[in-house]
């Protein structure tokens, strides 16, 4: 058997598409004012304080979901505790980050969509995001102390450490 015939009969390695979608670009933003850092690339572990406002830590999220400066958003951990409240969210929810931190999210927001399907609830969406699920989930919520208001919130993963970013749309 010639060399060429031997090569043709042997199994060849082929590139198989990944079952996971390729992760899109990510960007860093301040967890309080939403501003983007001036330096490109990830910040050093000990230099994550926002240079614009000095009151938030830099977090990373998917570029399509990262908030803009002044946006209203919350950062939640896997136990559904509030970890950060942006300046915009402080105004929107009439609260203060120092008061809200470590409280359960339901003390600030409650689901406001009685017809939501299973898996689209606030808790499920936050849990999925803190586990690193890439897909953005949308839920309807209202401030816990206010009726007649309905806000659409988008929940995506952010970090480090792994957490959920809840942005009001």
């Amino acid at each position, binding site marked *: 058997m010639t060399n060429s015939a031997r090569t043709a009969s042997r199994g060849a390695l082929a590139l198989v598409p990944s079952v996971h979608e390729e992760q899109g670009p990510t960007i860093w933003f301040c967890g309080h004012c939403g501003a983007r850092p001036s330096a490109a690339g990830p910040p050093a572990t000990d230099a994550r304080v926002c240079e614009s406002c*000095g009151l938030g830590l830099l977090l990373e999220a998917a570029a399509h979901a990262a908030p803009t400066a002044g946006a209203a958003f919350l950062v939640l951990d896997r136990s559904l505790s509030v970890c950060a409240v942006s300046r915009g969210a402080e105004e929107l929810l009439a609260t203060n980050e120092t008061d809200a931190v470590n409280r359960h999210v339901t003390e600030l927001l409650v689901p406001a969509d009685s017809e939501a399907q299973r898996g689209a609830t606030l808790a499920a969406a936050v849990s999925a995001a803190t586990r690193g699920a890439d897909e953005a989930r949308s839920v309807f919520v209202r401030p816990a102390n206010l009726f007649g208001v309905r806000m659409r919130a988008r929940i995506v993963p952010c970090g480090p450490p792994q957490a959920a970013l809840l942005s009001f749309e």
Partner: protein
Amino acid sequence: MRYLKTSEAAALLNVSPNTLRAWERRFGFPKPQRSPGRHRLFTHGEVASLRDALQEGLSISSAVSRAREGLATDTNSLIGALVSYESERADAAMESALALRSLERSVEEVLLPSLEEIVRRQTIDSAAWAFSAHWAADWLRRARRLAPPPVRPVSIVLGDASRDELDPDAPFIRSLELFSVRAGANVLSLSVRGVAGIGDAVAVHRPNLVVIAGGHVGDDAVARWAYAVRLAAGAMPVAVYRRGPQRVRMRTTGTSVLPGGASEAQRRLLELVETDQGGRATRVTMESPYGIQTGRRTASM
């Protein structure tokens, strides 16, 4: 105890001094003390604890919260040791607190809150409180023995109107004494029950100010003691001290009511003495050649 200037603390946290001051305003942490020149001095323990929390945090608020929790472990350790009747472990908890804080802050942030918590949980009739109160009195006495000798021309007579060592006011009064001594004042502490011979004590001590501390002894007994001191030493400023927030509205008749926190009360005491000494100097210079005084006291016995 290692202290850091604002620039050093900011460098350790990798932020600007302005950011650090902004955190102090917004979060009250890290909480600096002041140098004699009124510059901020941060304890290394607090700053290091915040730096570690920031590296694992999602926001400054949550990092501050975590750093505070870390510091609160000293209080829990002390409470645990006291309710277990273990004085050596209680001493160790205070040593651990002193590694992160000044003595004043260790007393105010660890020792006194722990004692208040034990009173709240166990009541003042309990054996746990009896043990804790005795341990605290002993610890504060030991700390006072290590204080430097008086360096200020300030002499204070403290009339102790608490019941005894088991009175919840007692540790606060001992703390006020300790802080005043450490601030350089000469402090003589006497029970307001001892009136006979008070003139001799006052003649030796020559106080600039009298503090009546505690609220157990009745008003009549306190008034008798204060009158005897006044007879012996003449008119001088008087201040009243009770622990914690001022709960009772008192008829002060010219006396000053000190803040409930021991270190705040100590600062106010020195201000009162300095104001009075300044007033005396002003009065001497304002005296007319005919010996008519034009100065006026604001708080005197």
